[in-house]
């Protein structure tokens, strides 16, 4: 009872006396959490963008004759022998004609005099959307061309390559910046905590000398660290959320319907981040005093 009272009054007093310096630590933590979560958010959304952008990726295999059900199965078999694919679609001559007509829209009249089967039938292959299968797409297309009855294999080679390298590059950049930032923030928070502890080194030493027990000295630091972590991470996440709303309303407008579905962290992730920050700060404080308390 006495102990708890003493510890709380200690904590309270130290906060009241040092809040100006603590503010600096708080800003550090807030900034760190903000930066860290910002990158995490960008990274996780970037991964999703990658998954959506390549929905259009497909190989079109033009055939010289309309395949019957048997042949279709054979083709399917052969294709799947080479690589796992997401989906295979057979497009007959008439289907192709309808599509073309659909594209011409108002000017469908121009097709009036043309036989409905002037377009070749085709197979549309949607490969697995991952980077390994992409790296093999050229080989895939060459393999498909060797199949009997194949006129030509077409795919948005240029686009595919652009996209994948772009997305992959984006991932690498985000990942690298994230790593650099984690390094920096760890450094900063550690530094900040060490500074706080160090600025009170004399007081801690005196407490040891007059016989304060270990917990009497440490618990206030632990509580302060936890409080800082809680406040800092909450502020950081709040700032991130505001930023997120701002970006979403101002920049992701047109994209929102389409390929991006920007999402914030789930509530449980937010809680995790806050709890982690609290543990980190409290733990950091705790460990830092250890060294000083070797008197």
């Amino acid at each position, binding site marked *: 009872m*006495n*102990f708890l009272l*003493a510890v709380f009054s*200690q904590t309270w007093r130290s906060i009241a006396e040092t809040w100006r310096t603590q503010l600096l630590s708080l800003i550090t933590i807030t900034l760190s959490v903000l930066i860290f979560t910002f990158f995490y958010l960008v990274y996780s959304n970037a991964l999703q963008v990658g998954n959506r952008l390549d929905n259009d990726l497909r190989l079109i295999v033009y055939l010289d004759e309309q395949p019957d059900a048997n042949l279709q199965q054979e083709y399917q078999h052969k294709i799947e022998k080479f690589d796992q694919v997401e989906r295979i679609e057979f497009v007959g001559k008439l289907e192709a004609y309808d599509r073309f007509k659909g594209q011409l829209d108002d000017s469908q009249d121009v097709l009036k005099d043309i036989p409905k089967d002037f377009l070749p039938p085709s197979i549309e292959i949607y490969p697995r959307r991952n980077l390994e299968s992409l790296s093999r797409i050229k080989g895939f297309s060459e393999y498909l061309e060797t199949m009997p009855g194949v006129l030509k294999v077409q795919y948005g080679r240029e686009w595919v390559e652009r996209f994948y390298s772009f997305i992959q590059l984006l991932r690498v950049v985000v990942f690298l910046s994230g790593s650099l930032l984690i390094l920096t923030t760890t450094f900063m928070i550690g530094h900040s905590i060490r500074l706080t502890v160090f600025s009170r080194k*004399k*007081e801690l*030493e*005196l*407490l*040891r*000398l*007059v*016989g*304060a*027990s*270990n917990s*009497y000295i440490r618990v206030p630091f632990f509580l302060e660290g936890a409080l800082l972590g809680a406040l800092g991470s909450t502020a950081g996440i709040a700032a991130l959320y505001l930023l997120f709303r701002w970006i979403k309303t101002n920049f992701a407008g047109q994209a929102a319907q389409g390929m991006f579905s920007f999402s914030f962290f789930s509530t449980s992730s937010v809680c995790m981040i806050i709890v982690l920050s609290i543990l980190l700060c409290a733990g950091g404080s705790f460990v830092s005093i250890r060294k000083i308390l070797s*008197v």
Partner: protein
Amino acid sequence: MSGEEKKLTMIDLARVSKTFPPDVHALADVSLRIRRGEMIFLTGQSGAGKTTLLRMLCGIDCPDKGYIEIAGYDLSRISGGEMQKLRRRIGVAYQDFKLLPDKTVAQNIAYSMEVSYRSRPFIRSQTEKLLTELHLLDKQDALAGKLSRGEQQRVSIARAVANEPELILADEPTGNLDTETALLVTQLFRSYNEQGTTLLIATHDQAIYDFPGSKVIKIENGRLAIQKPPTLVKKAEGKE
């Protein structure tokens, strides 16, 4: 040493040595027994080893060799928690004061009482009483760093005695004080001694120990030299 005698002993040193690098023999083979309730003065030239001895008695330093027992605890075997409890029973006025310059005088003095979970009213009344006795009551709320050296020294003494310790170690407690102010300190120490507190005071100030019946130990180059009365210091004995 009989159990009875052990109970009466506050400080027991046996062949204690301390060497600092490169080869400063700060203490060499010091054996000493101080009974409870005694007031002993420790003298010796500058650099003789007085502070080193006092630091070992409150557990800041460890001896290289030898055995130290305070209030029945063997300092080489004491656990961390017990050491801290023991420290609460010892009041130390350091030669360099160890005050916190950014805290007020009252806060500085309160530190030694707070760690023993003393009540607020006790802390307040004790602080006021001591500051009155040391003529510092008007400085109660001044920052310790702003005081004159002599005032700081008195604050450090007040902090040492505030928690009513069983043992008071004072290192040069009047070095920055004029004769009159030093007298206040001496009187304070005497009154504690009369209540049964053991005191060990390292000092150069002949004025404060030059009275009939005073017990004085002199260190010379880390060794016990003269003592007055001569029976004070025990013969060198092996580790018991």
